[in-house]
């Protein structure tokens, strides 16, 4: 099995995603977006970065690129797709997941540690955790505030498609623990299928033991969970 990490012109966490997956023994390769998805793709990472420079809305241009049509088709076939940071923005812009990630409440870029509470442990991406677990995973974004209409938010919530919420070190979901003003402190959500997930925090930055937290490993192991299912 080989996980494809899609590299757009402005991707910058593509090497990191490959590095972190490889550390976990998951075979992964960077694929230039214009080359299209390889046939043997068993999983897809939309990595962080600034895809097309993001001079328009973050992810808006990438969502309209040919490779994303292939990613959508693969997702519909059950190929697991994980969008991280800019990949999450692209995922929303593409309609793989509901809602949108927009400018932080601070109106500034924020690179810092965040605590995430696991809201649904019954997904490939969270099987390694228990519901209510608190993970320490860094964020690094200027447009990470999750926004969605009230009704659709209720639906996401009731269908268990909220994957992670920002919380404090003890797992309390509070305004103070919300780094970017996201609705409902939402940090990551599932698509229509639970094999599709997007999140703003960077699990690949919380994987290698020599960088501190390894709490993000379980998210990346979602690719194993799906292929073994």
């Amino acid at each position, binding site marked *: 099995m080989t996980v494809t990490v899609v590299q757009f012109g402005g991707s910058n966490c593509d090497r990191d995603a490959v590095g972190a997956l490889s550390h976990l023994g998951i075979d992964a390769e960077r694929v230039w977006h214009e080359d299209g998805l390889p046939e043997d793709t068993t999983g897809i990472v939309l990595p962080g970065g600034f895809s097309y420079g993001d001079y328009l809305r973050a992810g808006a241009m990438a969502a309209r690129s040919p490779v994303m049509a292939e990613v959508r088709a693969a997702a519909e076939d059950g190929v697991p797709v994980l969008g991280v940071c800019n990949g999450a923005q692209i995922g929303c812009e593409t309609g793989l997941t509901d809602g949108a990630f927009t400018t932080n409440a601070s109106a*500034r*870029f924020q690179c810092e540690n965040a605590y995430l509470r696991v809201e649904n442990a019954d997904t490939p991406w969270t099987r390694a955790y228990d519901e209510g677990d608190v993970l320490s995973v860094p964020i690094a974004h200027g447009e990470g505030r999750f926004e969605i209409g009230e009704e659709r938010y209720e639906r996401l919530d009731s269908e268990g498609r909220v994957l992670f919420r920002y919380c404090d070190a003890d797992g309390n979901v509070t305004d103070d623990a919300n780094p970017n003003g996201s609705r409902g402190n939402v940090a990551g959500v599932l698509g229509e299928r639970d094999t599709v997930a997007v999140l703003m925090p960077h699990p690949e*930055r919380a994987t290698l033991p020599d*960088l501190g937290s390894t709490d993000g490993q379980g998210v990346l192991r979602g690719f194993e969970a799906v292929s073994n299912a």
Partner: protein
Amino acid sequence: MSLADSDHDLIRAELGRDPTPEEAALFENLWSEHCAYRSSRPLLGAFDSEGEHVVVGPGDDAAVVSLPGSDDHWITLGIESHNHPSYVDPFDGAATGVGGIVRDTLSMGAYPIALTDSLYFGGFDREHTRYLLEGVVEGISHYGNCIGVPTVGGSVAFHEGYEGNPLVNVACVGLLPSDRLVTAVAQEPGNKLVLVGNATGRDGLGGASFASEDLAEDAETEDRPAVQVGDPYAEKRLIECNEALLDEDLLLSARDLGAAGLGGASSELVAKGDLGARIDLDRVHQREPNMSPLEILLAESQERMCYEVAPEDVERVRELAARFDLGCSVIGEVTDGNYVCTFPGEDGDDNLERETVVDVPAELLADGAPTNDLDSGDPVQPERDLPDADLGEAFEAVVASPSTASKRWVYRQYDHEVGLRTAVEPGDDAAVMAIRETETGDGNGVGLALSAGAVPNWTACAPYEGARAVALENATNLAAVGATPLAAVDCLNGGNPEKPAVYGGFKGIVDGLADMCRDLSVPVVGGNVSLYNDSVAGPIPPTPTLAMVGTREGYSAPGSALSGEGTLLLVGDAGGALGGSEYLATTGGSDRFPALPETPTPTLRAIADVADAEGTLAVHDVSDGGLAVALAEMVTDDAGLSAAVDDALALFDETPGRAVVETTDPESVTERFDGVADVVELGSADGSGRLELTVGDESLEYGVAEIRELRDVLAQGLD
């Protein structure tokens, strides 16, 4: 600004004719202070730039240094200033500074892995300062984050001398497998010169000469056209394209386009190979219609590289540039004659009608500028006149001074983690980057430690001694994370050198840095000079930004946060004076600069050893703000300390080369420093989250929340 009469006469004599307008403009830019170091070159011989690990020293786009502990990986080091542009247009000025130093890294064949930014502004209480700070930080954040190079360190200082002239000094470290080295030395006549990257427009015309004058009162409006606008998305594709070109071994030599644009890069490239070039300027891919040859030559449009490519490889270079959606033009070739530029004559683009607009020896452009012999006045150290200040008020003023306060507001806006190498993050004494490529089967990889900065109060008080202290302070930061210094690059900023007092101060910082780096056995492998940082508000303090790297085995360091369980020791010799201190800056008064240790290396080695010792729980160097700030910074929610010192002098003395160590094994530490430097037991750490200080017969006490409130002054003033 136009070519000086004496330069014009010299060029006329060399060429045997009057220079063409294009030639005159090239000379004006390439012979400017910014490019030719005319006032500083006579001083720069003070630096030792050679050493066991130096592969490429000063003079190329970036220096190359081998890594102890690795046979096949080198690093590149470069630093540059973007001072004038950052005043005129803080966002774009600072952003393009990042872009430039990253391309200097690419052109050596390296991949950029870390940036540091040292920023200097006028008083933080002024609204204009905060506007500049916000713009500069946002510009660095925008550009650096987008291109995926982590900004892992640097410094931010405030001093009234930067009121009309802030400084932005950006350093970049690259990683270079040793078989990929490319230099800016042109190889062989007949090879093609290929321009890859953004299209050329009329932006940044005359930036090099603009950077070589004092800033006028109306600079913010008048000079805006001389500031370039960056496109980090193009830079990111250029980084990836450069990698792809290196993967296929297609680059024979390379130079990035910076000051003086294409004219600068291409002439320097061939001059270094003792060769010439023929360039057809109209072949340059352009963004605007009807550009004149002079504009094409000198525009400082960003995100462009000039490559020397073998004729048979040109097509492949074109293909790879197209893959990354970058423009590519074959603009001419390397020759063994003069540096020649042509342009279609008035009759159109028929080759027979081409006009030669430049025809000069490349080395005359690159190296022909005469140096300036300037007068210098000797700086005088202040006398001791210490204030009788209230201890508590002084402590709070020093801890809450914007220069010593928390810089989290700044580095939180920088992506400092992208690349998965940042093992020790900003906010600690030095960043440590994991060079995983050097890992062996059973052993640790090389941890690359970085520290960058200068303390303007120090060099304003005593240029020579202050600059020595800056070098020692950066080396101490490295020692605090267990690293041994390897090499450094400097960015020397000064005012108008034609003023003898300014030139004397500048000479002081050059000699001071050079002498201390020599004492520390740290080769200074490259650098940048920025003069004429003079505005209506006066000259800046002479500012010797140093970016120093060191190495250690493995990536982990104890960090500066207390554990709450050990004894607190102060190691290293205090200089016993307060000149240049934040204490005097806030309370008034004057003093000489503290005496520095004669032989600092044994102390630094001992600090590095202690940082790696088993019983060591925390290490934090003592520098600006003295012990007062160092101790305040170590307190956390869960850990506090109680400590005692003799007097205010001991609390606020800023002598570098010292560190606070929290240890469970104070005897071993004391033993390690026996015969090396002083060890003073300050007190002990505890689980209180409080700072309790006894100073003579007075005492101070602060909780972590109060300390955080004091230290958070930047965020309070900006959010």
